[in-house]
C-alpha cells in the first residue's frame, strides 16, 4: 500500500494545498500540525487567572497537556471545506436511497434552527423560562398525533431505533400492568435490522413471520405462530418492500385477539400522509422518523428524532417529564402516572423537533397530502420505466419506494446490484439501497421521494439503462467503476482485518 498521497514537506508537517478537483487524498487534520501554531482566541473576561494547578491537587491532573492538534484557522477551514467537496449530499443531486427518504431539506428550516431565541436556551431552565419551547413541543405532539391517528406522544427519542425501544418498553409496562405474561414479538422477514435488535434490547424474543408471494405479511404464517405469548407485532405499512399491507385490519384483529399490541415503524410514513393513519389501521404505538418524513437533514448519519405516539390506553406510560399545556394557558412539565421513565438526557433533539414543526406548518394539511401523492407517483413511474431493464421484485403498484431485483440480470450477465450502485455514483447519482430487504435477491431499493422531478427520474432511468447496456458489453469495465469519485472501490475487508480507527494507530 502506497503512502504517496501524504507528501511530507521539509517543514515537517504536511502541505495545506491539495488539488481542488484533482484526485489526491486529503491529509488528516493531524498532518497539518506544527508545534506552537494556533487558531483559537477567547473572550477577554476581565478575570485574573487562577492557575488550575494552584487549586487542584496533582493527583487529579494530567502530567502532560492533551495533544489535540496545532493548526491555523486558515488551514483548518480549508481542510474541512475540501472534505466537504469529497462528500455527496442531497444538495448536490438525487439520493434515491430506499427506506431513507432523502428528500430536499428546506433551507428555511436551517434558519429556524438558528434563531437565538430557540438555540440559546439551556435545557435545565425552569418551565417559566421556556414557554416558547414547550409550546413548540406541545404543538408538534398534537399535530403528529393528528397525522398518525394517535392520542399522545413523547418527543424524547433521538432517532427511530430509540423510538422502537421506547415503544417496546411501553408495551412491556402495559402488559405488566395487565398481568399479561408475554415474551415474544413478531417481526416480518422483510423488517429493518433495528426492529429485531430493539426487540432484544426490550427484553423480548423475536418470532419471524413470512412474506407471501404478494410481498405482504403471510396471514397463514402469522396465524401459525400466534399465541398468548405474543406481546405484539412490529410492522411498517407500507412495508419495506414499498407495498401496502392490505390485510392490516385482519392482522390487527389477530394480534389484538391475543392481547398483543401493534407497533408501527414510521420509516415509511412519507407514503400516506393525510391518506391513511396508523391509528385507524389498528396500531397502538407509532414511531416517526422526523429526519425522513419531515425532511430534517440527516447530517451524514444523524441527528434524527424519533417521537413515539400511542393510543389512549398507553398514554399514562409515556416517558416523562413531558411538556403539557395547562388549562390556564401555561406550559409545564408533567410525569405521566405510570411513566416508563426518561429516554433522553433532556427533552429530545429539540432543534430537530423545531425544524419538523416548521416543515409541517409550511405544508399544511394539503401540502402534506401532496408530498405523499407525488412520492408515490414518482416511485410507480420509476418502477414502470425500469420494468424492462430491472423488474420489481413484486409486480404490484408500489407506494413511495420500489424494490427491484437484479437477480435475473445478474444470472444472465454477471451484473450485480452492487455494480449498478457503484456505476450510478459515477454518473452523479447516489446509489439506491442495495441488498435490503434481505428476502429479495440482488435487491435495489429506490425511493425517489417527491422532490425529484420527472427530468431527474428520466435521467436516472437512462443512466441505469446505459449501465446495464455497457455492462453487458464489457462486464470487467463495470466492475471497475466508479472512476470519477474522490476514491474508487474501497477495500472494506482490509479495514476490518487490520483495524485503523484513529490516526494514532496508523502504522501500529
Amino acid at each position, binding site marked *: 500500500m502506497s503512502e504517496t498521497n501524504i507528501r511530507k514537506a521539509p517543514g515537517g508537517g504536511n502541505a495545506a494545498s491539495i488539488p481542488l478537483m484533482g484526485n489526491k487524498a486529503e491529509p488528516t487534520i493531524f498532518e497539518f500540525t506544527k508545534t506552537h501554531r494556533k487558531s483559537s482566541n477567547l473572550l477577554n473576561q476581565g478575570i485574573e487567572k487562577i492557575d488550575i494547578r494552584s487549586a487542584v491537587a496533582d493527583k487529579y491532573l494530567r502530567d502532560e497537556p492533551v495533544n489535540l492538534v496545532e493548526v491555523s484557522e486558515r488551514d483548518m477551514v480549508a481542510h474541512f471545506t475540501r472534505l466537504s467537496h469529497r*462528500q455527496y449530499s442531497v444538495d448536490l443531486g438525487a439520493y434515491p436511497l430506499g427506506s431513507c427518504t432523502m428528500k430536499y431539506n428546506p433551507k428555511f428550516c436551517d434558519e429556524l434552527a438558528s434563531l437565538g431565541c430557540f438555540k440559546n436556551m439551556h435545557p435545565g431552565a425552569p418551565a417559566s423560562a421556556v414557554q416558547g419551547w414547550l409550546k413548540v413541543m406541545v404543538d408538534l405532539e398534537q399535530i403528529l398525533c393528528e397525522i398518525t391517528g394517535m392520542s399522545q406522544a413523547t418527543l424524547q427519542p433521538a432517532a427511530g431505533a430509540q423510538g422502537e425501544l421506547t415503544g417496546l418498553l411501553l408495551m412491556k409496562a402495559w402488559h405488566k400492568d395487565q398481568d399479561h405474561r408475554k415474551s415474544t414479538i413478531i417481526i416480518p422477514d422483510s423488517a429493518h435490522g*433495528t426492529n429485531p435488535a430493539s426487540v432484544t434490547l426490550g427484553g423480548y424474543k423475536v418470532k419471524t413471520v413470512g412474506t407471501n408471494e404478494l410481498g405482504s405479511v403471510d396471514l397463514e404464517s402469522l396465524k401459525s405462530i400466534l399465541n398468548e405469548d405474543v406481546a405484539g407485532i412490529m410492522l411498517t405499512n407500507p412495508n419495506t418492500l414499498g407495498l401496502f399491507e392490505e390485510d392490516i385490519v385482519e392482522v390487527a384483529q389477530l394480534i389484538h385477539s391475543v392481547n398483543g399490541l401493534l407497533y408501527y415503524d414510521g420509516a415509511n410514513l412519507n407514503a400516506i400522509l393525510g391518506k391513511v393513519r396508523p391509528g385507524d389501521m389498528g396500531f397502538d404505538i407509532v414511531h416517526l*422518523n422526523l429526519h425522513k418524513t419531515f425532511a430534517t437533514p440527516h447530517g451524514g448519519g444523524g441527528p434524527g428524532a424519533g417521537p413515539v405516539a400511542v393510543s389512549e390506553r398507553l398514554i399514562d406510560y409515556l416517558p416523562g417529564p413531558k411538556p403539557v399545556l395547562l388549562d390556564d394557558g401555561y406550559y409545564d412539565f408533567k410525569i405521566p402516572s405510570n411513566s416508563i421513565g426518561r429516554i433522553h438526557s433532556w427533552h429530545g433533539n429539540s432543534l430537530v423537533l423545531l425544524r419538523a414543526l416548521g416543515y409541517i406548518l409550511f405544508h399544511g394539511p394539503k401540502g402534506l397530502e401532496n408530498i405523499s401523492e407525488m412520492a408515490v407517483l414518482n416511485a410507480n413511474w420509476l418502477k414502470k420505466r425500469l420494468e424492462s431493464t430491472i423488474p420489481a421484485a413484486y409486480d404490484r403498484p408500489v407506494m413511495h419506494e420500489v424494490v427491484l431485483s437484479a437477480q435475473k440480470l445478474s444470472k444472465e450477465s454477471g451484473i450485480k446490484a452492487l455494480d449498478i450502485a457503484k456505476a450510478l455514483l459515477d454518473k452523479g447519482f447516489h446509489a439506491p439501497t442495495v441488498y435490503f430487504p434481505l428476502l429479495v435477491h440482488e435487491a435495489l431499493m429506490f425511493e425517489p421521494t417527491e422532490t425529484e422531478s420527472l427530468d431527474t427520474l428520466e435521467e436516472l432511468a437512462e443512466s441505469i439503462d446505459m449501465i446495464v447496456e455497457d455492462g453487458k458489453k464489457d462486464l470487467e469495465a463495470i466492475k471497475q467503476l466508479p472512476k470519477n469519485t474522490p476514491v474508487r472501490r474501497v477495500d472494506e475487508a482490509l479495514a476490518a482485518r487490520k483495524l485503523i480507527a484513529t490516526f494514532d494507530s496508523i502504522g501500529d
Partner: protein
Amino acid sequence: MPTFTPHTPEEIKQMLGFLGLDSISELYSHIPDSLKLGRQLAFQGLDSEFDVLSELSLTGETNINSAICFAGYGAYDRLIPAATKQLSARSEFVTAYTPYQPEVAQGVLQAIFEYQTFITRLYGTDIANASLYDGSSALVEAINIATSLRGSKKVVLSESIFHNYRQVADTFSKGTDTEIVTVKESDLIEDLERFIDSKTAAVVVQTPNRYGYLVDLEELSPTISKHGCLFIVVMDPIAASVLKPPGKIGADIVVGEGQPIGMPLSYGGPYLGLFSLREDLVRKLPGRLVGRTYDLDSKIAYVTTLRSREQDIRREKASSNVCTNQTLMAVTAAIQLSWLGTSGILKVAQNSFSAAHYLHSELHKHDFEFAYDKPFLWEFSLRFNQNIDKIIDAMLEEGFLAGVKVTEEFSKEEFLVVAATEKRTRSEIDSYVNALVKITR
C-alpha cells in the same frame, strides 16, 4: 399551499398516463376505503416560509433567552467561533445520509475518523465510535456492554452521576433486566468492596461529578479491576483536557456528553454521546466505527468498518440497536477541537476555572454556603435555607439563569449547582452575585 414538489399539472398527467391511471387517487385505490382518512388533516398550515419564520419567532420570543447562563449540569454555555458554525453548516455535511457508499462519502468518513482520534486522545482510550445520541445513551450502551460481557446483571452507579443519566439508565434497564444499584459516592470511595459481588458487571463513576467536584478515579480502579468488573467513567470532554485521562488509569469505557465541544445549548439537543473504550472491547462497540483502508488505486480511503456488529447485519443478535446517530455533531466536534487545538482547549479549561473560582470567592465573601468543600473545576453547589425553585425564578427576573437544582438521592437535600465558563465576564459574575445577595437577603 406551498410545497417543494416539482411536478407541474402537465407532468402529473403525463406520468399518470404512462401508468395507465386517470387520477392521483387511483394510486391509493388498493388501500381499503374503510381505512382512508376521508377528510383533511385537522391543523392549520401557514402560507410561506416567511409566515413560518415569523410565527415561530413570536413563539420563540416567549422563551426568556436574554438570561445570562450560570447553569451547567452537562450542558454548558461555551464560546463557538464563526469557523465552527460555518463549516459545520456546509450543506454537504448537513444533507448527506449515513455513508453507505464510501466512494462518495469520504468527507464525512474522514471527519469522523478525525473525531474518533480526538476523543481517544481526550479520554486516554483506544477506540471511539462515531457518536451516540447523548451522554445518557452513551452510559446506557456502556452498561449494556458490561452486562453482556460479564454475563451478569448488576451494575453499581455512584449517586453523584447526573440524575438524568441515572434515570435513563433505569428506563432502559427494564428492557435488559439489569439491576441498577445506586450508592453514595462517599460510601464507594470508603469501602468499594462492600458493593461488589460476583454478579456485579460494572461500577460507574462520574468526575467532575454532578455536584461539580472531582473524584479520585485512581482510588477506585484497582479494586474494580481486581474483581474483574468493568470500570465505566462519565467525564466532560473539556474537563478531560486537564484531568488524568480515565483510559490511562483503569477505566475500561469512558463516556460523556459532547455538547461542550462545539454545540449550542439548543434546549438539550441535538447533542453528542461520546463513547470510547479499550481496544480489546471493540467487537462490543455500539454504533458506527470508521476505519482507514485503501481503494482500488491504493489511495487512502475511509469506510465504516466492523459492520458485522451492527443491527442491520446481526439483527436480533446485535447488542445495540443504534442506527441513526449524531454524526453531524461529531463532525462539528472535530471542527471545534481542530480550532481549539492543544493550547485552546487548555485555555477554555483554564478560563472557565478562573471564572468559576472567582465566582466562588465572591460568593464566599458574601457568606453563601457551599455544599461541598472539595476541589472543583468550573461548577460547584450552593446550599440555601430557602426554596431553590423560588430563587431560580427570582434570579430569572434579574436576568440570570441561576443554575440547576439537584436533590441528593438519600438525604433529599436540595442544592443549586452553578457553573461559569470561559464565556462569563467579570461584570456578569459581579452582577450575578449582587442579584443573588439581593434576592436571598
